[in-house]
């Protein structure tokens, strides 16, 4: 295992857990808010914006994890009917398309977030700046991008990837 893949595996593991904790936090926060609602005067301020931004971060990180595992919704109909050689070519095309998408997205998103940072957009009530959340989400996209580029490189070098065995349409 190369040091790059070791680094990737370790960071995906961490990101995985952080994303899970964010989801747990938002779920719990919403739960507590509902349970406390009948009590007068109890109010958790700014939960609406905080929840949606935290979930956004969590989901972008989940995207990186999904890239690592190669688990994305895809259609295998043609793929399964093809001989091995064609399949290998299709794998390369699909991964390259994914890498291109993430590269374009992350690159342009960086500029977009810088704009938002300068514009000074804030959340309601808590008055938190929005851009740090966007930047955290962006990190997930960048990580996914690195993973996909790593996969394309591995394919070009003729290395085999674990999830190529089966696993159609996993969701």
């Amino acid at each position, binding site marked *: 295992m190369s040091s790059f893949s070791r680094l990737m595996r370790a960071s995906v593991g961490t990101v995985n857990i952080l994303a899970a904790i964010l989801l747990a936090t938002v779920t719990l926060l919403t739960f507590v808010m509902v349970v406390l*609602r009948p009590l007068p*005067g109890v109010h958790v*301020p700014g939960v609406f914006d905080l929840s949606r931004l935290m979930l956004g971060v969590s989901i972008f990180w989940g995207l990186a994890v999904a890239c690592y595992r190669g688990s994305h919704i895809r259609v295998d109909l043609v793929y399964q009917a093809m001989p091995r050689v064609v399949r290998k070519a299709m794998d390369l095309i699909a991964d390259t398309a994914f890498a291109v998408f993430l590269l374009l997205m992350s690159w342009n998103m960086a500029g977009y977030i810088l*704009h938002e940072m300068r*514009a*000074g957009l804030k959340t309601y009530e808590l008055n938190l700046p929005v851009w740090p959340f966007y930047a955290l989400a962006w990190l997930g996209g960048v990580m996914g991008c690195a993973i996909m580029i790593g996969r394309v490189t591995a394919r070009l070098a003729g290395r085999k990837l674990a999830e190529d065995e089966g696993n159609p349409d996993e969701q």
Partner: protein
Amino acid sequence: QDSQVTLRLAHWVPPGNTNDIGLHIWADAVTEASGGSIQFQFFPGQQLGKAADHYNMARDGISDLSWIAVSYSPGAFPIAGVTELPFFVGDAVAGSVEISDWYEEYAPTEMPDVKFCMMYVSTPGSIHSTVPIRVPDDLKGKRVRPVNERLSRLVSTLGGQVFQVTVPEMRDGLERGLFDTTFFRWKSIVDFHLTELLTYHLDMPMYVSHFALVMNRSAYERLSDDQKAVIDDHCNGAWAGKMAANWAGEEAEDGGRDAYYGQESQTVYAPSKDEIRQWKDAAAPLTEQWISEVAASGHTRKDPQVVLEELRNRLGSAGALVED
């Protein structure tokens, strides 16, 4: 002969909404003045992006023109956000003319990525609720749907809970008692069929909603000089006043404030001078906050206090200030 251009105009209210009609009137006037060389393609109802993204869409060229709600981007346009100060603008039409012209000076630094066209405000809205509310203290413990970030802070200061809910979810939220109070324009209550739920009304000109029309810079630069002149002729305070008049006129026709008086099912409360004073005192810190925010933003070199006074004087001489 100018070359033909088609501009994409994006907004987020449904087709047929008064503001959609107003924008069509504006667009038709531009087309006519350009001798047909400037045409518009409308993208209503968030077709090209979410309501809150409309400024960025015009900036980024996703749309050529965007109609934006200034309060949907809290923190981004502090100078323009002056109209969010409670008990300030009292007349939609005269006020819009002044606000739009006044803002011309600040738009290049505060909205540097777009060509600012115009800005206009609604008739004053107020507090409507399922339970009686008369003085600031009554907001304590209420769950309030806010209308902008500034009034959210007021609600929090007064011990109310801010409850964010989108307009389509309002009916549900009120029926289920998830919230009980909202800032709303009088006409909106009728528009969204909430008259039998929101039966208590506080008759005081508390706030105005605030919209702007902005244009993508390169879309503007691509136009011929004649075409630019046509756009410039239609981007000014006079047109802002017309847009507001179209909107306010519809308000006056039905569903305006007066229609609520004398209705058995509705309780309208007109606060006394002293009670209005209580509200204004409660809201006073918001002006201080506005001043420090503008100072911090660096969007103008002027003293924010002066910026505010300029607008106040303009509104005052146009008779568009809320009376003291």
